[in-house]
């Protein structure tokens, strides 16, 4: 969580203006967002526009402020300044659970599954946030309760099947192999019924085969569930291959934004990754 304020600030207003001129209304707009913790500027003048269906990558060295962006979007942090609009609605002041219900889901960098609960239950939990039952109906086991329970189970099994987790359904989530835990986090996030999916280092710790399979899976999920995806990733091959556009952060500042080709050629990106600041 570093970030020095006195650095030369790069504004990308031109890009933002050009992109807001596109026809379909954007799903997400972050405008001039700033986040400081006391004197520490974690994120400065951050702008991001996501069109529906876009797959956008957020990269940068450690401590660049990437996860801060996720925490701002999902309501765990409130921006010090700036505006965040999701599907036309202002997110400022909303609690994480309220934002989740509006259609934004995330995974966590350090996996945060409900470790003692079964794989199936992990996927059932987010469905509860859309439950229309009162606690009386649940305690009295009314027909409405069984109907909803059945619908939840069907949905959960469908997601487990989609992410190839069925064989482990009854196992405690904490005992799953690492790769499956990562996939379960995605299944759990999808259970909230998101329009925007935020993935925090989904390929971390995966071997090249697993990571290639994940790339394919994400493309399919995006198509099948009409998702817009914003992902943080250190694996450059992964990012360059899968993302349509990239945003590069360094010390809380946006140093480049554009297609993978443009970003790769940007001298400031090369300096941030290979230069005196050290690499990722």
């Amino acid at each position, binding site marked *: 969580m570093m970030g020095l304020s006195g650095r030369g600030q790069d504004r990308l207003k031109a890009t933002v203006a050009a992109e807001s001129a596109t026809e379909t209304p954007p799903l997400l707009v972050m405008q001039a967002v700033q986040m400081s913790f006391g004197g520490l500027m974690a994120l400065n003048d951050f702008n991001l526009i996501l069109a529906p269906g876009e797959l956008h990558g957020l990269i940068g060295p450690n401590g660049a402020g990437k996860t801060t962006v996720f925490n701002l979007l*999902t309501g*765990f942090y409130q921006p010090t300044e700036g505006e965040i609009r999701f599907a036309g609605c202002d997110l400022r002041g909303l*609690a*994480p*659970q309220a934002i*989740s*219900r509006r259609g934004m*889901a*995330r995974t*966590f960098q350090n996996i*945060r*599954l*409900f*470790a*003692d*609960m079964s794989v199936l*239950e992990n996927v*059932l*939990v*987010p*469905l*509860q*946030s*859309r*439950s229309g*039952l009162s*606690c009386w109906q*649940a*305690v*009295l*086991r009314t027909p409405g*309760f069984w109907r*909803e*329970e059945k619908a*939840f*189970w069907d949905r959960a099994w469908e997601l487990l099947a989609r992410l190839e987790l069925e064989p482990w359904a009854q196992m405690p989530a904490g005992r799953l192999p690492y790769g499956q835990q990562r996939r379960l986090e995605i299944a*759990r*996030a999808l*259970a*909230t019924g998101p329009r925007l999916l935020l993935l925090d280092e989904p390929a971390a710790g995966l071997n090249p085969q697993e990571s290639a399979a994940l790339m394919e899976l994400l493309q399919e999920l995006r198509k099948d569930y009409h998702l817009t995806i914003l992902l943080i990733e250190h694996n450059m091959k992964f990012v360059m291959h899968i993302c349509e556009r990239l945003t590069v952060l360094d010390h809380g500042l946006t140093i480049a934004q554009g297609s993978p080709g443009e970003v790769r050629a940007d001298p400031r990106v090369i300096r941030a990754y290979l230069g005196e600041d050290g690499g990722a």
Partner: protein
Amino acid sequence: MAGSPRRHRLLTGAALALLLLLLLAAQHWADDYFLRLLNTTAVFITMAVSYNLINGVCGQLHLGPNAFVTLGAYTAALLTLTAAEKQASFLMAPLIWPLREISLPFPAALLAGGGVAALFAYLTGFPVLRVRGDYLAIVTLGFGEVVRVLANNLQGVTNGPMGLKGLAPYTNLWWSWGVAILTVAVVMGLKKSGFGRAMLAIRADETAAKAMGLDPYRYLLLAFLVSAFFLGVAGGLLAHLITTISPTLFTFFLTFNLLIIIVLGGLGSITGTVLATIIITWGNEWLRFVEEPIFLGNLRLPGIPGLRMVIFSLLLLVLIIFYRRGLVGSWEFSWDWLLEKLQRQKRGEAS
């Protein structure tokens, strides 16, 4: 939810009928001492199971169940006493007006006891459920003490340290076990539903639960209210079982006893809580001999009053060091489990 619900309902009905028969037999043939023990067991099952909803299922270290028991006990007791009895008891300060006149039948008084406890839980829920961990433990511990001190000093309502005497012994096996079964059914029903899954998720990782769209306040408040209601009803039952209540009955010791029970049983397991309640209440009686003088030949060892508490404290220490997950961990009894086990045994005999 696996298996056939109809068969489960049948088995549950059969088990309840069996319990009913046992209670009928006890009612007919057992002596007063044994009946008292059975009643106490049921009241403690009610208290421990509802306490475990917050401490075990939701994973919040709550240290003030004695507050809700006190509220329920006093409310129910004040409502069942007749106007004449109240006038005779309140010597230092007369009982305040509306309570002076009202006299209700026992079931209504029990409900009122639970209601008052739940209302108190609702009012304190807002500050209490804003904090977590050690802070929640300290705040709830404080509330428990506040209620006890109020019971000691609000002479016009509680008759102060003299307490309330001469309550009718309304609590019998049917009331105590009926309420215990209802509590187990409600808490189990909640736990095995989406509400329970949400509570378990909040216990496992509150941040992740929030990111999945769950509002922790909503689920914790629900658990808090349900738990307080049944603790209040249990308080009413306890008052009409002992027939005399005073503030000393509801100190932190009560909370401590409940805490031992739920830790022994396994945090979050209702099955474990019921087993542990039976072990602790019956063990408590069985261990009486350690407080009486013991004769070894000519040698007379004097009994040490309070030695049972020492034994229970040691038990808690051993538990925390060696069996942190309690007797059954988070395991829960289910008919599927029993049927499967029986089937396996049969197959084992056949081969």
